[in-house]
């Protein structure tokens, strides 16, 4: 069976600056992969290439069998199956929590209004915010916003979820509630790619950890191997600094 995500020779440049210098990554269905590494190493850029929020300079990216680097591919259809959660939540401030969640399924005619509402309430229960359905994002705490953002991404019933530093903009006491939801999602078998600085989460939840530096994959493997027995000196150096 084909892998959920298959990246070959991915290069991404911003003008003269080459941010990703040839990445090869295979991700299986149900796998939870954490990307770690210093700032500027290209982790977020790599993640954003997976749903083509960044135009890809060279290489191929296949998601769910769709070659998204092909301009002929309808990227919108592919994106419907890829949920994304952002560092700064990016909730729609002019819509209530429930409207945020219902917007895409209804607009893209994947669900009727009633179905989307039922599913939205279900998702809010899952993230522990069923009492916030009619509230506007401005009235929520950071942790609550991020949980709504996760629910919104799930409303399209995606089979891959991308997380771009989902807890980096949160106050420390709110990190746990978001990670809890993500753990639940991982346990339910969601394919997840997570850019994170939460080493505890990476160690506990992920199936595989990828350490990136300078636009390359420096080292990858199961979390025990990366955290207990890192091989590359750069990995060792990074882990010494953050742990």
């Amino acid at each position: 069976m084909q892998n959920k995500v298959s990246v070959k020779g991915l290069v991404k440049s911003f003008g003269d600056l080459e941010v990703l210098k040839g990445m090869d990554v295979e991700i299986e269905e149900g796998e939870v992969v954490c990307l770690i590494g210093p700032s500027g190493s290209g982790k977020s850029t790599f993640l954003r290439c997976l749903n083509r929020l960044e135009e890809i300079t060279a290489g191929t990216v296949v998601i769910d069998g769709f070659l998204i680097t092909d301009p002929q591919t309808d990227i919108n259809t592919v994106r419907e199956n890829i949920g994304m959660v952002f560092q700064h939540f990016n909730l729609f401030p002019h819509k209530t929590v429930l409207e945020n969640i219902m917007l895409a399924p209804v607009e893209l005619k994947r669900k009727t209004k009633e179905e989307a509402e039922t599913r939205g309430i279900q998702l809010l229960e899952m993230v522990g915010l069923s009492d916030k359905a009619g509230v506007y994002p401005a009235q929520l705490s950071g942790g609550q916003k991020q949980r709504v953002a996760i629910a919104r991404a799930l409303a399209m019933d995606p089979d891959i979820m991308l997380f771009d530093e989902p807890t980096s903009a949160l106050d420390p006491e709110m990190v746990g509630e978001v990670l809890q939801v993500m753990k639940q999602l991982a346990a339910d078998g969601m394919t997840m790619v997570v850019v994170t600085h939460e080493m505890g989460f990476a160690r506990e939840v992920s199936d595989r950890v990828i350490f990136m530096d300078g636009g390359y994959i420096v080292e990858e493997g199961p979390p025990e191997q990366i955290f207990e027995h890192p091989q590359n000196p750069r990995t060792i150096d990074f882990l010494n600094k953050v742990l």
Partner: protein
Amino acid sequence: MTILELIAENYARLLEGMGRTLLLTFWSLILASVLGLIFGMMKAARGKIWHILSSLYVDVIRGIPVLVLAFFVYFGIPQGFGVNISIFQASLIVLSLNAGAYMAEIVRGGIQSVDRGQMEAARSLGLPYRKAMQKVVLPQAIRTMIPSIINQFIITLKDTSILSVIGYADLIKVAKAVIARNFEAFRIWLIVALMYLIVITVLSKIAKAIERRMTYAK
């Protein structure tokens, strides 16, 4: 003659002139809003051709005085192309083109004031660009645009007075005709000024009320 008698004698004609001023303003603003939305969105879009086209429109209009544009459209175009344009049509074209260029800048600024993450979040859910623009970015952009739009509405209302030079029978032209008959320049222009002031003040108050109702806690 007291000022009250002066008003009693001429109010019907002056109000008629004001009516035509408002009529022209109303239709110009509708057309200008459409133009502004189209060209403003083109300017905010990524495509280079769109950007050049809308910049061209905005720069050309901004670089020409309304008065010159009015003469060009009403006297120049009929001669150059052999078409007939009525005074109202010419006035409408001039004001719409003019206000449209400024509205385009307002729309562009409004769209660009919305955080990039909003568009990205909408696109990541699978919404096509147009839907994301329509459902997510524009509703937020319009809120920040409202004060500038109100300002442009008032400027356009005042700009209608320029069209009296090509013969549009607005408040100014009516007032001139009245004064030609009774030589009451001081008091008639005073009345005209007050009429503009009242109408603009009332419109501003209505607009402010709309603005308050549309704002939300950030």
